[in-house]
């Protein structure tokens, strides 16, 4: 297995404690940044490393940072997105619970680069253990002078808040997260203006994912060239792949971007459970289009997955064996998105309910061929016509399963029910 960077401390007893982290070289990158580098040099290093956001969109991190206006007086903020709610995703939790100091070090270095003196970690409400460990880590770091008014005796000061969410998927969307941080309902904001200019409390704000910020210490410590040498061109660095579903060994695997799906599933995750065949994979969480077994040689990186009509998303690899009903999967996920719709946009609020009713009809034997086409029509009436990207995401399960497995939808219609019913043992 490749050298571990993000998971190097996981599994070591007491990995969440400051003394363990420091004994393994932790906080040396922060020291290096403060003593040897100018803030702009840190940003340059992150740019040069090629790091792209690990929260879903893959936006270049250094470029995002450079959008923050330099000449505006007054406070600016960094928000760490630890809301991890995308179905299939459980990678950030591993860092939050096992290596909170790596994240804090990444946050501290990033805040130094961005001249931020107050940062918020927005952690999903259900992650009680992660929040507890983070809070303790913040206290330990403050006590040791690694956070607080004079970080490592310098004149750079930083306050980090651990802010718990309260059960809402949409708060993972960056502007909804900001609204929630301001004590409001998590309703996404219209963009532009982008958070880099008008963010938290109307101030310039950077929002980055947990894994993204956790890459920063090693970039500073080992240099951007080192980071860029991992992975493939334009898709650099290590990536956490959260593999779930029908594999023998589900779990979080750290591998260079560009590893093939086949390698990930068969060499690392132990292959398909019970010796069954692979049918389909959502390669980057529930909002990424399904790909099929024939595409298993695709490289797991942003550009290669985009080239086969899917996306790397959050790196959550959801694996389905040949006994899986794709209509049932689409139905379950469309219900999820309907439930999580914040209700601001009519297409998202109403269209998803309509899609659920049609999918239920097909799954339970009351559907027609016209319903399949109607599903696609409604989906295209939602996609691209909403305020936030959740509208686009929400129709992907239905849209992509129809695109790749239309025959399965048709056999539901033809036979008046679900051909997998006995296998799954489900009832209406």
């Amino acid at each position, binding site marked *: 297995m490749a050298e571990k960077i993000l998971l190097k401390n996981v599994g070591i007893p007491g990995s969440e404690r400051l003394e363990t982290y420091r004994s393994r070289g932790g906080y040396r990158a922060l020291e290096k940044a403060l003593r040897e580098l100018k803030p702009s040099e840190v940003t340059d290093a992150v740019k040069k490393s090629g790091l792209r956001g690990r929260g879903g969109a893959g936006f270049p991190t250094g470029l995002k940072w450079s959008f923050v206006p330099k000449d505006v007086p007054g406070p600016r903020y960094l928000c760490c997105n630890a809301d991890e709610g995308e179905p299939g995703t459980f990678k950030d939790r591993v860092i939050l619970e096992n290596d909170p100091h790596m994240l804090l070090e990444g946050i501290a270095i990033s805040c130094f680069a961005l001249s931020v003196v107050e940062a918020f970690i927005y952690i999903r409400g259900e992650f009680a253990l992660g929040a507890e460990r983070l809070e303790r880590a913040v206290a330990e770091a403050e006590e040791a002078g690694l956070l607080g008014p004079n970080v490592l005796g310098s004149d750079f000061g930083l306050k980090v808040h651990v802010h718990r969410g309260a059960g809402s998927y949409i708060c993972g969307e960056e502007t909804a997260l900001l609204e929630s941080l301001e004590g409001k*309902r998590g309703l996404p904001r219209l963009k532009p203006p982008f958070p880099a200019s008008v963010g938290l409390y109307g101030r310039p704000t950077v929002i980055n994912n947990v894994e993204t910020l956790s890459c920063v210490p090693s970039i500073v410590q080992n240099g951007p060239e080192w980071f860029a040498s991992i992975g493939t061109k334009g898709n650099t660095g290590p990536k956490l792949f959260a593999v779930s579903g029908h594999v023998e060994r589900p779990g979080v695997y750290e591998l260079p971007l560009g590893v093939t799906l086949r390698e990930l599933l068969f060499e690392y995750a132990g292959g398909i459970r019970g010796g069954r065949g692979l049918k389909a994979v959502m390669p980057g969480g529930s909002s990424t289009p399904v790909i099929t077994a024939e595409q298993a040689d695709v490289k797991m990186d942003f550009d290669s997955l985009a080239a086969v009509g899917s996306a790397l998303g959050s790196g959550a690899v959801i694996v389905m064996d040949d006994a899986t009903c794709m209509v049932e999967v689409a139905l379950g996920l469309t219900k999820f998105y309907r439930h999580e719709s914040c209700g601001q946009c009519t297409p998202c609020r109403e269209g998803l309910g309509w899609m659920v009713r049609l999918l239920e009809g097909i799954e339970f034997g009351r559907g027609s061929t016209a319903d399949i086409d109607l599903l696609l029509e409604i989906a295209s009436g939602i996609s691209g016509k909403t305020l936030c990207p959740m509208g686009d995401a929400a129709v992907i399960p239905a849209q992509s399963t129809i695109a790749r497995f239309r025959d399965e939808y048709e056999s539901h219609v033809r036979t008046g029910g679900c051909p997998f019913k006995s296998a799954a043992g*489900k009832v209406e």
Partner: protein
Amino acid sequence: MAQGTQRKFSPEAQKEVDKILFSYGVKESAVLPVLHVAQREFGCLDRAAVELVASTLGLSPTRVAQTASFYTMFSPAPLGKHVIQVCTNVSCSLLGSEGIVRYLEKRLGVERGHTRPDGLVTLSTVECLGSCGTAPVMAVNDRYFENLTTEKVESILRELGL
């Protein structure tokens, strides 16, 4: 202001609230953190609890109530002593969460989405708990139970005295 309600935080909770108020420069940002304390303290966010939070923060009760109602972890009515939440999202359902929910419904004599009349247990289904590698998963109050089978569920229920 709280209109003649008797609701107060316990001294420990009040200490926690004071710490939150001190730590956040913008008081609106303290809404969720203080609501969490109140939910834990009173078991739900009924009107009196919302009013207490509002007066603590110097905000209108309507403003606080609007926020609270958006989030699933804040409950307007009391829940059971044990709140059992089974994830039924994609990775868990691929590995049989539906069977787990049905087992719990039968075994506990309560349907999903309901609290048993004796107030001992609330059973609900939830969206992805961020633990899909150890599916199927359920949370009981704050604690996660993973890689569930019906046998494992049975022993957890016994441990809880259910």
